[in-house]
């Protein structure tokens, strides 16, 4: 599979936060979920990758090319949805489009109008009057109307109701039906990724914790439940996170074979992405 984004040793120092040597790859044909709790560095990473924050160190290659030397070509192949929209709110949708569309060499007006109709957006409506959900849909419309190969979205589902979130996931799956497309999107609502993600990258305190396929990650970890009598100094170390109450324990492990061998009578379940994320974040 071709690499669509290659980030190496990315460093960015902000006043109260820093990214430390961020490394990851995105593969073509994959939906990659970029997960982490609020303030973990998701937005900083995305903004640095897109050049909105100048990086301190490291290299960023889109489709095998350095972004500095190929900005115009690369940005023509990327669609971006930012968390806060960054729209000029006094403009109408039509006016905003008239500013964005001419920047792209392959802007497709018919696709734009198709999404405008699908989302029931009105071109003469002021952006300020759009709800958060409608605003995200408009951002998505702009991002999808120039045949982008890579869609980058920062917290697109944050603050949206489950219905709109579900609709967004379906749009992503539709987008992925065409060959050569990829999606990278950050979220702290990991349930959105259960259906659609192929790969998962976890970031915490500005460091990448893991970057692997969702299925492998879920297979490699387990949610273990059982009686407190099974927990001792030795077995406690088998867990990434462990919560004990009066009725028993619940923990996430990445040493499933050892747990099976040493802890009889425990219940082993498949964890959710959220279980795994919180286990690593707590451990960190």
């Amino acid at each position: 599979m071709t690499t669509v984004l290659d980030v190496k040793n990315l460093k960015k120092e902000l006043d109260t936060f820093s990214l430390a040597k961020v490394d990851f790859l995105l593969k073509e044909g994959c939906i990659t979920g970029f997960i982490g709790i609020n303030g973990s560095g998701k937005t900083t990473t995305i903004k640095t990758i897109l050049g909105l924050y100048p990086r301190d160190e490291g290299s960023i290659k889109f489709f095998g090319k350095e972004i500095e030397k190929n900005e115009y070509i690369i940005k023509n192949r990327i669609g971006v949805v930012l968390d806060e929209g960054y729209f000029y709110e006094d403009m109408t949708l039509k006016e905003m489009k008239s500013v964005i569309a001419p920047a792209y060499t392959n802007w497709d007006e018919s696709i734009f109008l198709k999404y405008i109709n699908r989302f029931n957006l009105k071109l003469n409506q002021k952006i300020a009057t759009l709800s958060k959900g409608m605003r995200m849909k408009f951002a998505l419309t702009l991002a999808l109307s120039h045949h982008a190969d890579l869609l980058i979205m920062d917290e697109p589902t944050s603050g949206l109701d489950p219905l709109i979130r579900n609709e967004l996931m379906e749009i992503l799956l539709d987008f992925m039906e065409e060959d050569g497309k990829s999606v990278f999107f950050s979220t702290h609502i990991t349930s959105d990724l259960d259906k659609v993600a192929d790969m998962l990258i976890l970031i915490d305190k500005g460091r990448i914790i893991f970057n692997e396929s969702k299925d492998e990650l879920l297979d490699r970890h387990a949610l273990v439940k059982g009686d407190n009598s099974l927990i001792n100094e030795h077995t406690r170390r088998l867990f990434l996170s462990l919560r004990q109450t009066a009725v028993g324990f619940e923990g996430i492990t990445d040493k499933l074979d050892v747990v099976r061998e040493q802890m009889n009578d425990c219940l082993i379940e498949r964890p959710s992405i959220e279980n795994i994320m919180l286990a690593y974040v707590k451990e960190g």
Partner: protein
Amino acid sequence: MLFHLVKKDFILAKKYLLFMLVFAVIGPMFIYSKLGFDNGSFTSFLITVLFTEYILFNMVSMQEDKYRGSALLCTTPHTRNGVIKAKYLFVLVIFIGCFLLFNLAVAIGFSTGLARLNIYSIGIALLIISVFFGILIPIQTKFGYEKTKYIFFILIFLTPFILPTIIEWYQSMNFNINFQLPLPQTVMVWVPFVISIFIILISMIISIQIFSKKNL
């Protein structure tokens, strides 16, 4: 692509645009009628263009500051350099617009004595605009709209206190800055334009440098 970024600025300033268009025609006639000295046409044009440029430019800057739209623009093939270049082009387009409307004002108010400007006067007006925005744009790029507003407020507030001292010092030094370039008169009239372009280019390079390091 630059054209569309300039168009964006005009859309952002649309609330004031009609008023400023009317002002660009009526302003010179009104100001000229209040000024009772020679060269009143030039002064009325300069005041009109400075006022129009400042109002429209700040209207755009205020909205840029509020909505941080340049972040979205910079995720598209519109580049950071383009965003800065468009600001200067916006100022230049307003200047040309004001000049054209001033000629309309001259046609309407010809009987009042308002006269067409010669090339040299237009060049001097452009030079003054270039100096003003050549300073304003890099400062605003560095500090943002709100802080720049306060910086300029303080400067304007201090002017009555500092300016007399500077003038006194200047007069006491008996400087003589009258000099003639060894150029024919037909070329000399274009010198202010050349200096303006030079100032704009230097200012633009500084603004681009500042903006390239900014977190959007």
